[in-house]
């Protein structure tokens, strides 16, 4: 007879271990089958020529070599970096500023917090359709608004020079998620620090610069990492707005859109898998760099006290 989980023949520690495995098994099995499995499969496919319907053919490193010589690979990487360099810092700064404002003691603050958070719960496709109309030079509301100030608005999504900036503006729509996280961080700053700073004669700016900002760097770091990953995975909005084309004139051919085209339009699933792994390595590399840099600018109160 096999011992059950409650069997007295098992030590308490062993029984606890088995129970732990039992409890985490559903997630673990799901993770292995639906995340690790496809990841390993895509790693294998990245060394193959695979068109989805016929068996993969092993071609070694040819996909990786072709990628280096693929101008559209570099172009799409450039578009993604361009977007990330503008959208990521802008999103972090704007959401931080909003969070600071929403951290003030003013009447109706909960309503304001809700107002700023609600847009971020709307799905990407709906947001894209909405902004598609807002940007419309003829029927949209943005250009007539600019015209009030004597500014002739561009063809936001039809002008190659303005397409990425338009998407950056659109990305600000969903800063509400970051705002909530910043707000939690801001409310966790001990008030005694502000009191001490006031006693020392610090101005409002000095209190922000030397108390608020350092104390919230862990939250900024968190949002930076998630934001970085999010910008490199940018896909839904641009797919909807350009009908998957990356136009005008490939100005919005983001990395993931080009990856999608290779996988599901050109049926180069092996090549697309290669792109996915290269993207993974790029994002991992940048993330590690940011983690390494965090020693110099992220302040953990607990760590300091422990030193």
């Amino acid at each position, binding site marked *: 007879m096999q011992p059950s989980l409650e069997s007295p023949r098992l030590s308490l520690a062993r029984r606890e271990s088995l129970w732990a495995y039992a409890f985490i098994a559903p997630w673990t099995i799901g993770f292995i089958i639906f995340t690790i*499995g496809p990841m390993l*499969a895509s790693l294998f496919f990245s060394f193959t*020529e695979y068109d*989805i*319907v016929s068996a993969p053919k092993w071609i070694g490193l040819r996909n990786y070599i072709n990628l280096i010589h693929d101008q559209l690979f570099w172009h799409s990487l450039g578009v993604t970096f361009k977007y990330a360099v503008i959208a990521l810092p802008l999103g972090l700064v704007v959401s931080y500023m909003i969070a600071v404002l929403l951290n003030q003691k003013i009447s109706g603050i909960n309503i304001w917090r809700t107002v700023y958070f609600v847009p971020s719960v709307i799905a990407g496709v709906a947001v894209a359709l909405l902004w598609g109309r807002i940007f419309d030079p003829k029927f949209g509301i943005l250009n007539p608004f600019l015209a009030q100030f004597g500014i002739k608005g561009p063809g936001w999504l039809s002008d190659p020079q303005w397409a990425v900036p338009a998407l950056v503006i659109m990305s600000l729509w969903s800063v509400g998620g970051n705002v909530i996280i910043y707000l939690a961080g801001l409310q966790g700053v001990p008030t005694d620090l502000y009191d001490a700073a006031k006693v020392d004669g610090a101005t409002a700016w000095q209190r922000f610069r030397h108390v608020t900002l350092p104390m919230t760097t862990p939250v900024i770091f968190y949002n930076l990492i998630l934001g970085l990953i999010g910008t490199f995975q940018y896909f839904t909005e641009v797919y909807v707005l350009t009908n998957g084309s990356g136009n*005008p004139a*490939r100005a919005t051919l983001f990395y993931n859109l080009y990856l999608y*085209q290779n996988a599901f339009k*050109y*049926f180069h699933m092996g090549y697309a898998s290669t792109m996915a792994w290269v993207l993974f390595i790029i994002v991992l590399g940048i993330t590690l760099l940011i983690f390494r840099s965090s020693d110099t600018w992220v302040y953990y109160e607990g760590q300091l006290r422990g030193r």
Partner: protein
Amino acid sequence: MKNNLFKVLALIVLASVILSACAPKPTAAPANTEAPAGTEVSAATEAPAATEALTTEAAAGKVKVVIFVGMGTGTDPDQVDAQNQLAEKFNTSHDNIEIEFLIVPHEEYATRYLAMLSGGNAPQLVGPNGVSTVAEFFDTWEDITPYIEADKLDLSDFYGPAVELNQYPDKNTGLPLGLYPSYLYYNKDLFDAAGLDYPTHDFEDTSWNMDKLRETAMQLTLDNNGKNAIDPDFDPENIVQYGYDDSWDGMRATLADWGAENVGRPTTADYKTAVADSPEWIQGLQWISDGVWKDHFIGNGEVQAAQNSAGVDPFGPGTTAMFYSYTWFLAEGLHDLSFSADIAPYPYNPKGERIARIDADNFTIPKDAQHKQEAWEVMKWLTSPEIIVDVCRIYGCIPARKSVQSRFLEQLKTDYPGLDYDVIFKSIDYLDNPNHEAWIPEWGKIEDALNNGLSLVYSGEEKDATKVLTDTNAEVQQILDQYWAAHP
């Protein structure tokens, strides 16, 4: 604890890998990786399979033929109802086969079709299929030549060009169902307001050429002061009415009419050399570029984006005098117009030829279909003289059979009164061959490369057609070289 956890995880990973390895391997033919004959790759030709295992039994021992709909038209609610009625009609009149239309959203057609193939669950029949989707999945289709020969099927009733569109050197992809010839839709009210004669309906009138089209279109292009594009005081910043539009098609279609040696194909006949920079294509693209940026009778990318955003076609709002499109636009855009409209032949090109590109639909049988013989029987039924008119009414195409033309004409008169129907039928004779949607290696990738060139022009990023097509041709050549290096 850590060691145990590692062992458990390792076991689960191993088990999942083994289970994956034991899964049945896909057996379908590769999609779009082989070339038609004339290249070094031969297309497999299987004999009709009359004795295949019947694994998809329908009611009362009937074989179920699942028809995959979604590659092109056929997914609108009205069409779904009509297709169900058609299935009912078939099922009550056949003892051995039952048909069922599987409706797939158009935006999912590629992933769903490929998933069905790779899962060993290929549909028996696919359609209506445009030339483009036939090309997109070229190597997954069965060659129906043996079926035609086995039945000694007489194809003479089909329009010759309709048969040719499905006939590749090594493969016939399907019986013709319908044709969508192209011509100009024009707004009679705008012509009347400008005091201009309507475009000629005389197919022999060679004075109706691209220069005349440009001149007429400029006269019909108006700014918000009512001045036309020929007037020196015309304000191109405030255009309220355009003379001409051909923005619903890609580069291959747009330039197919200009009389290049390879017509709508950007490669030579052996598919190894890119010829997108042919003088005729350059001339055609420059005509468009000038039309947008110099002569202003064609709307730019911004105008097109506004139409897309508003969900309107270029013709319906009544601000475009001439719109170049196909027969399928009858069903899509000729209802509830607030103005009178008619149709006219597309003009002669600068070489003195008339080429009016054409779309066409057929039904195709996947190579991996389990019941190919039954699928063939259904294909014959759908394209038979007795049924083809009903089928084409569902999909908005011109029946590909000559014998039903008069019957279909009566239907057209009822559905779209007041048009010059001769234009529709005569335009078939001027179709583009090689067709603008026909198979080429790396079909989707080259389409995107070419359409990027068109986007450069419409967006104003590059207005010099020679530069655009020289660059595009280099890109297409690179794609071809890569393809042939991998498929020697």
